[in-house]
């Protein structure tokens, strides 16, 4: 465990705390300063993350579609996404004439903020967590559902017929899929006995839940990935945008930086969902441990915990991206059928199985 600590960033955080308390003696202002620093760091991190995921998505899509993808701007096209952002920045921030101007301009903010809030309790590495809240899982699932209000707001205020249809679809879709997401989260909460993400990670020190929990946990992992793909409106469940049907859905009327905020929130949501899946099912920053093989576990500890976390997260992001570039889109009634006829009954029974497993102690 000593090695694990050496690689983590908790030492740096406490060093920063000591440094700042030298300058600011008042405890309240110290906290405010630290919050501002954290907020700015998080914002920069999330923007860079959105850039990276945008680049990754374009490359993944390109390779699956037997083409190169961006390869002109910067080395291997890495700066393409920066160029696109600059282009969006310079575009006119147009507000349609007949729109509800206040809601129209508010909606992108709400969507981005709700996406960013959900990052707070995620443990990026051992001891490196913005907010170690004891109801982390509950917090994430509740904060991320604020996004639907933003989408409804954007669709309604645009005064565009396609946008309204898109927004109404979003309402039906996100509310239904939240049930399955919640139930599959519960199965891990039941097993680990805690809502805190840190405790959940610690409970996987002798093996990840997906390996320890037999088939029921595997099923809830699959359900979580599918349902959360739908919850963040990514293809094949992107009916809310549905280019080919609704010409862009709720964000048809948006352009420039407001549109860029929608894009950014999509990628942040993607990251949050994958990070939660990685934390709950694949052990978060916990290295690959097998039971009591101390020698093997010790070797695994040499790999920094942040690499474990981001590796697992990127793996799930890749899977969700592959969904998008392989499957056609579902129809709205099929989408709801999938949730209410398949995912929800299965996950309900699955929760019962997991509970039984937890009570009887059948898991490893």
């Amino acid at each position, binding site marked *: 465990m000593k090695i694990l600590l050496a690689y983590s960033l908790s030492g740096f955080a406490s060093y920063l705390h000591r440094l700042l308390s030298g300058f600011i003696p008042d405890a309240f202002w110290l906290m405010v300063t630290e919050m501002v620093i954290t907020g700015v760091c998080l914002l920069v991190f999330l923007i860079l993350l959105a850039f990276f995921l945008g680049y990754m998505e374009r490359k*993944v899509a390109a*390779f*699956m*579609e*037997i*083409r*190169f993808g961006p390869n002109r701007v910067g080395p291997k096209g890495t700066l393409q996404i920066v160029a696109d952002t600059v282009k969006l920045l310079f575009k006119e921030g147009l507000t349609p004439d007949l729109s509800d101007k206040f809601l129209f301009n508010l909606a992108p903010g709400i969507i981005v903020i709700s996406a960013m809030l959900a990052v707070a309790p995620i443990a990026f590495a051992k001891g490196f967590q913005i907010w170690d809240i004891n109801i982390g899982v509950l917090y994430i699932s509740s904060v991320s559902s604020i996004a639907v209000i933003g989408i409804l707001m954007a669709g309604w205020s645009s005064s565009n017929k396609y946008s309204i249809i898109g927004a109404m679809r979003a309402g039906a879709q996100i509310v239904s899929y939240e049930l399955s997401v919640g139930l599959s989260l519960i199965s891990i909460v039941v097993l680990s006995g805690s809502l805190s993400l840190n405790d959940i990670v610690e409970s996987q020190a002798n093996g990840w839940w997906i390996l320890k929990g037999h088939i029921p946990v595997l099923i809830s992992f699959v359900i979580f990935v599918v349902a959360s793909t739908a919850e963040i409106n990514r293809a094949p469940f992107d009916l809310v945008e549905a280019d080919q049907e609704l010409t862009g859905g709720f964000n048809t009327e948006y352009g420039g930086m407001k549109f860029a905020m929608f894009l950014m929130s999509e990628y942040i949501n993607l990251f949050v969902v994958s990070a939660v899946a990685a934390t709950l099912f694949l052990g978060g920053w916990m290295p690959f441990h097998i039971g009591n093989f101390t020698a093997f576990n010790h070797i695994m500890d040499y790999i920094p915990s942040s690499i474990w976390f981001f590796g697992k997260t990127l793996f799930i992001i890749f899977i969700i991206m*592959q*969904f998008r*570039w*392989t*499957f056609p889109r579902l129809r709205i009634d099929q989408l709801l059928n999938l949730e209410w006829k*398949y995912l929800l009954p299965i996950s309900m029974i699955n929760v019962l199985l997991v509970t039984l497993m937890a009570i009887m102690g059948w898991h490893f």
Partner: protein
Amino acid sequence: MFIKEYFGTIFNSVKSLLTGMKLTGYYFTHQNKIITEEYPDNRATLIIPERFRGEVIMPHDENNEHRCTGCQSCELSCPNGTIKIITQQEIQPDGKKKKRIHTWVYHLDMCTMCGMCVTACPTEAIKMGNEFEHSVYDKSQLKKILNKPDSKLKQGVED
């Protein structure tokens, strides 16, 4: 029975989805199969088929002589009015007056590359060229005069 059908549906669905993901996964890992032609970069190695109809050209030989007699067959055969031939009377060395082309005007902007002018030409004076990069900054630059300055009709074409 219902349960069997229910789970059979799920099994088959997941199987079919995984088949698709296997294919995209295959192409993701086999990047040597990429088929993109990086056009402006591969200009040197680009193979344009000989028959490709890109524009009408009038070949001139080394003596600056062409084969156009100014018979206006091409002008008549063109469906779009792309070609305009302006002729003039030229006094030959033997004193006879003969019709010769003054300018052979080619409106590339109106041309649909059907190749009918080439088929109609009795003296094979024009043919279709392979050039395809026709973009210009102004439409007027697409009006071309095909006969070179001071060019002459090649001897013996008219006979």
